[in-house]
């Protein structure tokens, strides 16, 4: 084995080890968030008022008292049962998926997954370029608005063409979303590249601006508001311009075509990032900006183009939300952009990982509806989990320390295991 080959194999092992480590960290963060979430559910159960306790912690528990007789010494009742909540949250979201794979709860889960895949990969692209795009929410809103408003005028032209109309209008809608979101993403990118304005702040401010401008555009019939409606929304787009509901029922607002587009997009972005020179430049700018610039990468241009790409992906997410779920634009778009941050971070900013993380979050979002119906626990619980997951993924050192401590307890250590828990030498 030559020296260069040797170096290469070491390098590869580190990369895979860090990949495995990332996965372990994400999973541990998830488990830890769920555990802390359970504590929060119990604590909230003490704050709420209820007639009978849904959950009871007793010492010694019934497992022991049923044999020894007598009753528990310490017993505390809680209004919410965390196990039941998690049961509804995770399993409820799947519905009867084995018996009836197209059940409406599972359809909701997949619909959420589809939109989250776009917002998640949007955030991931920017992260890989070393840019924090917290503005996926705003870019998604702008993309959704652009699609909904423009198609309102364009779609009727293709009205009589049937399936052909769909083939023309649907991609056009996605493209419009990408255009709107992309431009809105390029703006903070340019502000960062050419005026040194911190993108975290500008993108958050632009989220507020996007929401306000969207409200302005759809709150009056003289602009784009549907005159027949009391709510702030545009007119509903014709049926043929929306995603067809193959296999699933139309009222479940989910389309396998959209999910397919999402999967293709994730694979496409993965290919772009790992197999093209643009992706290479983008990633080097993220890891080592100075080295990238030394290697001839135009840092400013990379920031703008990665933010434009990121915004475009979020914009497509908005277009999908309009063309699959809503059928028009409405104010009060759910916080897909913020969930996208968690999805991306949980996936280690890997476009393929985003798919799995998006499904997990789709389950959480859809499950929160089941929780809301089936118990008194507010669905905002998912918002708490969202933050906790980010926090724990952000502190890999915690898990490394825990891993080392656990590792030192084992009687025999072999080097291979040590590499897996330490994750090799990975410099951040």
């Amino acid at each position, binding site marked *: 084995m030559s020296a260069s080959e040797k170096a290469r194999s070491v390098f590869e092992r580190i990369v895979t080890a860090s990949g495995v480590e990332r996965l372990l960290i994400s999973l541990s963060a998830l488990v830890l968030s769920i555990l802390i979430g359970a504590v929060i559910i119990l604590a909230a159960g003490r704050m*709420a008022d209820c007639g009978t306790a849904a959950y009871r912690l007793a010492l010694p528990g019934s497992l022991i008292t049923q044999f020894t007789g007598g009753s528990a010494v310490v017993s505390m009742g809680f209004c919410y049962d965390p196990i039941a909540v998690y049961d509804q949250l995770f399993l409820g979201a799947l519905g009867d998926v084995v018996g009836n794979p197209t059940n409406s709860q599972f359809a909701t889960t997949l619909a959420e997954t589809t939109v989250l895949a776009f917002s998640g990969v949007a955030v991931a692209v920017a992260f890989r370029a070393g840019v924090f795009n917290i503005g996926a929410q705003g870019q998604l809103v702008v993309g959704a608005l652009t699609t909904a408003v423009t198609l309102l005028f364009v779609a009727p032209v293709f009205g009589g063409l049937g399936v052909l109309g769909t083939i023309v209008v649907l991609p056009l809608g996605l493209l419009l979303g990408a255009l709107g979101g992309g431009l809105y993403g390029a703006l903070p990118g340019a502000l960062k590249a050419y005026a040194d304005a911190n993108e975290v702040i500008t993108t*958050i401010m632009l989220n507020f601006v996007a929401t306000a401008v969207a409200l302005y555009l759809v709150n009056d019939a003289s602009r784009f508001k549907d005159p027949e409606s009391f709510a702030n929304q545009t007119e509903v787009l014709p049926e043929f311009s929306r995603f067809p509901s193959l296999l699933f029922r139309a009222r479940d607002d989910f389309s396998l075509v959209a999910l397919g587009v999402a999967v293709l997009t994730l694979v496409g972005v993965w290919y772009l990032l790992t197999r093209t020179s643009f992706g290479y430049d983008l990633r080097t700018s993220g890891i080592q900006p100075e080295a990238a610039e030394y290697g001839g990468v135009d840092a400013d241009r990379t920031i703008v183009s990665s933010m434009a790409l990121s915004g475009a992906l979020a914009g497509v997410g908005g277009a999908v939300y309009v063309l699959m779920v809503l059928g028009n634009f409405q104010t009060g778009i759910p916080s897909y952009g913020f969930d996208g*941050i968690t999805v991306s971070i949980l996936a280690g900013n890997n476009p393929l990982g985003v798919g799995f993380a998006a499904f997990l979050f789709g389950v959480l979002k859809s499950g929160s509806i089941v929780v809301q119906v089936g118990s008194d626990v507010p669905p905002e619980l998912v*918002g708490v989990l969202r933050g906790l997951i980010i926090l724990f993924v952000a*502190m890999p050192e915690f898990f490394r320390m825990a891993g080392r401590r656990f590792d030192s307890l084992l009687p025999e250590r072999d080097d291979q295991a040590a590499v897996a828990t330490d994750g090799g030498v990975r410099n951040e």
Partner: protein
Amino acid sequence: MSSAVERTADAAVRRARSTFEYLFVGRGRLQQFVVAVGLLAVLGLAGAAVFLPGSSAAALVDVLTDSSTLAATLRLSVPIAFAALGGIFAEKSGVINIGLEGLLIIAAFTGIYATDVTGSVWIGLLGGVLASTALAGLFAVVCIEFKADQIIAGLAVWLIALGLAPFAASVVYGGKTTDSVATLQTLPNMGIPVLSEFLVTPLPLVNTALVDIPFFGALFDANPTVYLMFLAVGLSWYTLRNTSFGKWVVASGENPKALDTAGVNVHRVRYAAVLLSGVLSGIGGAALALGIGQFTGSGPTMVNGKGFIAIVAYLFGNYNPIGAFLSTVLFAGLDATQLTLQARDVFQVPRPLVRTIPYVAVILVLALFGRTRLPSAAGDHYESGEGE
């Protein structure tokens, strides 16, 4: 006699020159242009108000000089100013606290909840401070002990609060918005012996009470947290400049190694600074909610980006507490102006667009004056050489 006049004229010229230098020298072409346009706009507005009564410029000046605008500016300044002061301490010490928004949110909710439970706004304020400090403590542990990426951990703090506060509100009050509780009273209504009386009693000679002075009356008719804010700005300025703690904080952000060599524990200084940012943001957040007596948790909650505006305020103020306070007043003033504009309906500008004024201003300020010099070790983890 004439020499005294000369001296005053001389001083005036010197002052004018130093102001001119502060505004224009050492700035880029674009910044100079913006400053010039800003000055012209102020002069133009003032001129229009005097010479063209009835014009829309005069109407705008009318809005700007309304006593309610100053009152709203002071009220809206409180959360931003406190969060900005907290952000200065944290960032000066080397920990970028981008989670100020989250600290404000959690303090706002806890402030209301604690007031509701105990019946006292002051205990409510304390509760808000405790909650915010606890969250800041978590952030500090994650960043300092576990070497987390400060930006991501800060975002996590924001998102945790953004989830937790509406969640807790729904648990306790059955909706994202809480019940109304007691509010912080303004000084004249607090029933403080002598002082409250004095503020509303017409003064001799001028025959107006302090609270009735046009425009500036609002300064005497505010709730105690506004005065606390002035105090905190002064104290922070003094602490950073003149105390050894302040010097440690600065050294911990600029040159942690030197501080360590001098025998001061860098981690401990950073913990103190981040916890302090929690205490200060706690006052700000609780004051925001207790000024209204209710926590609104839908969408971006009632805090509505104030934590992020605070970050821009201290960047614009170049990490100086007084500078940060002045830029806070600018942003809060714009917010207050848009509120008065909405209420008065002077101009036919649609409300949703008027509401974006403060956010757009923040973006412009950041783009034009955003090139501040961060403390050189900000964002970096520091590991003591001796191994703690």
